C-alpha cells in the first residue's frame, strides 16, 4: 500500500513540476521573441526586417548558452562582461520583489480575517470601498509616502527611512511597503469574494454549530479551501508587481534589474536579465503547486 501511494505521490509531483516547467519554457520563448523584437528598435534607427529579427534571436540564444557573450558597452566605450555588477542589481531587485509579494499576501489575508469578524452588512460596503482604493494609481501612493517622510524630516529633523537609494546605500523598507500596498488590496478583494462564497457552504455551518469560533474556522478550513483559487489569481498579482517595479526603481532610485535593462538595452541582456528574474519565481510556484496538489488533489493551471 505504501508503495502504491508513494508511486502516486511521485507521479503527482512529477506532473506538477512538468507543467510548471513547460509553462516556464513558454515564458522563456516569449521573452526571447519580445527581446529580439525590441532589438530592432535601436538608437541608430528602426530596422523592421526579418533577418535582423532572426539574427537577434540567434544572438540571444547563443548568449544564454554561453553567458560570457553577454557584453555591455561602458561609458568609456570599453566592453566588459555584465557579471561585473549584475548579481548586485539582481539580488537587490529580487529581495524587494519577493518581500513585497510575501507582505502583500500576509497583509491581504489578515485584513480579510478582520473583515470576516465584522458583521455581514459592513462587509459589502468595505468590499466596495476597497475596490475603489485598489484602483488608486501607484504613483499617488509613492508620492504620498515620499512626501510624508520628507515632511517629517523637515518638521522634526530625523529621517525615518531613507527615501531614495544610491549606488552605495540601499533602501529597502519604503519601496517594499509602497510596492506591496496595492497588491495587498487586490488580494484582499479577491480573498473577500472567495471567503464570502465559502462562508455560505454547509460545512462552515456545521463547524459553527459544533461551537467553533470564526477564527478557528477561517484558519483551519476556509483558508485551506480557498488557497487553490487564490493561488490561480496570484499570477495577476505577480505581473502587476513586475510592471510597477519599473517605476519604483526609477522613483526610489533603486539600482535594480530594470535600471540595468534601461541603461543597457541590448536584446541579449534584456532576455537574460528577465529570464534570470523569473527563475526563482517559477521555482516558488513549482513548490507551491506541488504542495497544493498533494494536499488537495487539485491541479492548478495558471
Amino acid at each position, binding site marked *: 500500500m505504501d508503495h502504491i501511494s508513494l508511486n502516486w505521490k511521485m507521479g503527482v509531483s512529477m506532473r506538477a513540476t512538468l507543467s510548471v516547467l513547460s509553462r516556464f519554457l513558454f515564458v522563456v520563448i516569449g521573452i526571447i521573441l519580445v527581446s529580439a523584437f*525590441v532589438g530592432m*528598435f535601436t538608437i541608430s534607427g528602426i530596422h523592421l526586417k526579418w533577418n535582423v529579427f532572426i539574427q537577434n534571436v540567434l544572438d540571444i540564444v547563443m548568449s544564454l548558452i554561453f553567458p560570457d557573450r553577454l557584453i555591455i558597452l561602458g561609458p568609456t566605450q570599453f566592453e566588459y562582461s555584465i557579471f561585473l555588477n549584475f548579481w548586485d542589481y539582481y539580488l537587490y531587485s529580487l529581495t524587494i520583489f519577493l518581500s513585497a509579494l510575501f507582505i502583500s499576501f500576509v497583509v491581504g489575508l489578515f485584513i480579510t480575517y478582520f473583515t470576516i469578524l465584522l458583521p455581514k452588512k459592513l462587509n459589502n460596503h468595505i468590499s466596495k470601498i476597497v475596490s475603489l482604493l485598489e484602483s488608486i494609481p501607484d504613483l499617488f501612493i509613492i508620492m504620498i509616502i515620499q512626501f510624508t517622510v520628507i515632511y517629517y524630516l523637515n518638521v522634526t529633523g530625523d529621517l525615518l527611512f531613507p527615501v531614495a537609494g544610491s549606488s552605495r546605500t540601499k533602501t529597502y523598507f519604503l519601496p517594499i511597503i509602497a510596492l506591496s500596498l496595492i497588491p495587498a488590496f487586490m488580494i484582499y478583494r479577491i480573498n473577500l469574494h472567495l471567503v*464570502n*462564497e465559502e462562508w455560505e457552504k454547509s460545512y462552515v455551518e456545521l463547524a459553527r454549530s459544533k461551537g467553533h469560533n470564526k477564527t478557528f474556522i477561517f484558519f483551519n478550513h476556509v483558508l485551506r479551501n480557498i488557497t487553490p483559487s487564490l493561488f490561480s489569481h496570484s499570477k495577476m498579482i505577480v505581473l502587476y508587481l513586475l510592471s*510597477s517595479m519599473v517605476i519604483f526603481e526609477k*522613483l526610489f532610485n533603486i539600482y535594480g534589474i530594470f535600471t540595468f535593462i534601461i541603461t543597457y*538595452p541590448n536584446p541579449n541582456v534584456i532576455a537574460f536579465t528577465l529570464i534570470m528574474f523569473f527563475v526563482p519565481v517559477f521555482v516558488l510556484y513549482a513548490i507551491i503547486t506541488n504542495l497544493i496538489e498533494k494536499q488537495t488533489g487539485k491541479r492548478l493551471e495558471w
Partner: protein
Amino acid sequence: MNLMKKLLLNKLFLTGFVIISGLFLVSIFYFIVFKDHIPTTSLLFAADGKPLPAPYSFKKFPPFGTDGFGRHLLIVMIVGTKYTIAAALIITFLRVFPSIIFGLILHFYFNKLERPIKSMVDSLNYFPMTLLAYLLLNVILIQDVSMTLVDGALVEGAQPLPYWHRVVLFIIILASLFVPTNSVLIANEVKIIMNKEFIECSRVLGATNWRIVSKHIKPFLVPQIAIIFIRDFIQSLILMSHLAVLGLFIGGYYFREDLFGQTQKVSLSNEWAGLLGMWWEFLWTTYPWISFIPILFITILILSAKGMMEGLKVELALMDNLRETPLKKENLLLPENLAPFERIRNYSK
C-alpha cells in the same frame, strides 16, 4: 435603451460620468472661448525691491498657484484635460476594437490553433508592459539627433520623426501592445457565450456565423466590452503616467528658460501625464503641492472611471439575475475560465 436609463439612475455610474464629461467639457469650453490662453505672471518683487522666486504660492494665486514660469496652474491643468482624456480614449479605442475583430476571427477561423496561441500570448504577458513600451518608445520619441562614437568617429544617430508622426506612433504602439491579450480575452468570452444552449438551436435552424455573431453574441458581448473598455481606459491612463515618469511625454517637450535662466523640459501639450513627469521634482523642493496637482487630477479621473465600471457591473448583474438563473458558482471558479488579467465575468455581488 433600458440599460442606459438604469445606468443614469445608478449613483456611482452617474457620478463618474458627470465628473469625466464635466472636466472634458470645461476644457473644450476654455479652448473655444479663450483659445487656450494661459495667463502668466511676470517676476514679482517684494516690498524692498528683491525679486521673489518663481513658483508662487497657492495663497497668492488661488487655487493652485503658479509654476516655475509663472503660469497659472489651474489653467494649465484645464488646457491639458482635453488632450489627456482624448489620448486615453483613442488609445483605449485602438486597444479594444481591433481586438473584437481579432477575437472573433480567432474563435471562428483558428479554432484548432486557439490553445497554442493563447499560451503564447499568455507568455508574452511576462514581459513587463511598462518596460516594453518604454524600450520601444524611447527610440521613436527621440527629438534630438544623438551623436555616438563608433571607432573613434562621431556618427549621427537617426533623425527625429516629425511631431505628428511621433504622437501617432506613441498612440499606436501603446495600443497595439495590448491587442493580443485583449483578443484572447474576447475569444474566451465568445467561447463562453457559444457554449450556451440556444446557440446550438440556432445552428440547427441554419444560422450562419454572421447571424450568430450579430443576433446572439452581440447582446452578451457588448456589456463585457463596455467593462473591458473602461478597464482599459484606466490602464491606459496609468501606463501614460508611468511612461511620463520615465521621461516619455505623449505630446513631446521643448526646452524653455525659466525666470532664472535655467533650461527645463516643458510638456508641449500640457497633458496631465506629462505634467506629472515634469513636476515630480518639485516634491523635493519647498513647493511640494505642485507635484501633487497632476496626480490628484489623474486619480480623480481614474476613480471616476472605476465608479462607472462598478455601477455598470452592478446593473449588469441585476439584469443577468432577471434574465436567467444565476450562473453556477463552481463554474465561475474554474481556472479555465480565468481571463488573462481579471475575471470580467466575476461580478461583485
